[in-house]
């Protein structure tokens, strides 16, 4: 592991009960890099973020953050390293009993001794970055889905983490917000020198901003490369995914018995 590497994932395996989700994943994420993880629904992308954050334990292998094997840390050490991480959850996960302002201020109040006047300024700056400074007094129930996700983004970057993980950051955003949020993620990664990991299905938007892409299918890394390599790839999996084609190695249907048999049409066909 070089000094430039912030996250190192080595031979990582994870199973729910006996069902393998991730099989032998190897990845390296450098400081200041913006990385996209793509793959079909249920391919284990979110699980990978949870493994990096220490929310779940791997079956074997490890995820190292800042030189520390995450699943071997005790609770205090894990919380210490999590203070340097931020995570945008798939559905925002805003605290519904707190206002937009208090949601963004939450970590500052929990982890710092900053005076309330400074917290106010910082919160308004974070909200301004996601275009919701004027909504600081609203409660989460008063926000649309897209607004809630933007507030969640402001909350997750509240303490300028060194590692930011975004789970589907573009879902539910209108085209203007999508473009602004995409640029914001890129700009923060560059200016703060943080490492950003995006789990996303939005191929075109993410290819515009990321440095490197990993494709996960059936629990393994099916392909990886820079955005230019991905766009020009002739690998059937990458081509199908990037161009959203129905035919290809990624099946649209969940495994099932014959359609005719399910509809009792076999006799009619004979």
């Amino acid at each position, binding site marked *: 592991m070089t000094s430039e590497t912030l996250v190192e994932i080595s031979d990582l395996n994870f199973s729910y009960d006996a069902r393998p989700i991730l099989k032998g994943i190897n990845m390296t994420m450098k400081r200041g890099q913006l990385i996209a993880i793509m793959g079909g629904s249920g391919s284990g992308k979110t699980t990978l973020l949870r493994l990096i954050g220490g*929310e779940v334990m791997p079956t074997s292998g490890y995820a190292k953050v800042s030189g520390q094997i995450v699943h071997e840390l005790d609770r205090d050490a894990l919380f210490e390293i999590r203070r340097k*991480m931020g995570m945008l959850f798939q*559905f925002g*996960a805003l*605290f519904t009993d707190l206002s937009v302002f208090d949601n963004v201020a939450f970590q500052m109040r929990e982890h710092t001794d900053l005076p309330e006047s400074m917290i106010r300024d910082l919160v308004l700056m974070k909200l301004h970055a996601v275009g919701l400074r004027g909504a600081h007094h609203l409660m989460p129930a008063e926000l649309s889905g897209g607004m809630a996700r933007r507030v969640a983004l402001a909350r997750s970057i509240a303490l300028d983490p060194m590692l930011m993980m975004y789970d589907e950051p573009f879902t539910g955003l209108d085209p203007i917000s999508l473009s602004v949020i995409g640029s914001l993620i890129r700009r923060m990664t560059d200016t703060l020198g943080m490492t950003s990991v995006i789990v996303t299905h939005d191929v075109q938007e993410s290819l515009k901003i990321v440095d490197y892409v990993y494709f996960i299918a059936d629990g393994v890394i099916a392909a990886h490369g820079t955005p230019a390599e991905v766009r020009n790839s002739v690998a059937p999996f990458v081509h199908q995914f990037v161009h959203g084609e129905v035919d290809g190695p990624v099946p649209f249907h969940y495994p099932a018995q014959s359609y005719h048999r399910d509809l009792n049409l076999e006799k009619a066909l004979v």
Partner: protein
Amino acid sequence: MFKHLAASIRGVGHRTIEGIWQLGHATRFFLLVLLKSGTSFRRFGLVIRELYYVGVLSLIIIVVSGLFVGMVLGLQGYETLQKYGSESAVGTLVALSLVRELGPVVAALLFASRAGSAITAEIGLMKATEQLAAMGMMAVDPVARVVAPRFWAGVISMPFLAAIFSVMGVLGGYLVAVVFIGVDAGSFWSQMQSNVDFRIDILNGFIKSCFFGVAVTAIAVFEGYDSPPTAEGVSGATTRTVVTSSLVILGLDFILTAFMFRGI
């Protein structure tokens, strides 16, 4: 036949093991809540906020129920006691019934239905919407920040609510017996004063309500935290909180009464 019998026995064994495992899990969680209670006392504002939701918002149901239970006790007590010419003892009957039994027990049952179910639903929904996971990812322990303040708010609220229930019940009894029926007010209060003992009756009732507060709130926070993160899971957990709390309150009441008033 034999297969069915074997399957039934296996089922009973499986449920027993599951029950014991769950009890152990709940005990560990309870100890964890106690261990993580430091934050609740260092930042008592968190508990005060929950006291409002758990205690103050339960007041209306406690006050109204206490008043009506006291009125019914006054009416029934008068009807029975007048047959023996002891209607002046109606104040004693109302007060003893309330401070020893009905106050702590009925207030705890109402508390379980109103506040216990709300605590379970809130924590369960926070889990289902990943708010607890998000808190954990922000290096804030959800047991210390969310569960413990609600637990202590419940424990603190319960004795006060039981006391308010008893006071309202006595007032209800007074309204019916003295104001409506015409029992002598002096007899009503003096009999009560001379027959209700502070240590044996009031203090024991207070101790009971403390036990009920711990039991109901511990069940409520555990069921919420342990609930499956789905709508069905939260709904089931809320139901379990009310049912389990009610049974535990009644069972505990019998045990505590046996110790307190029979000296077992």
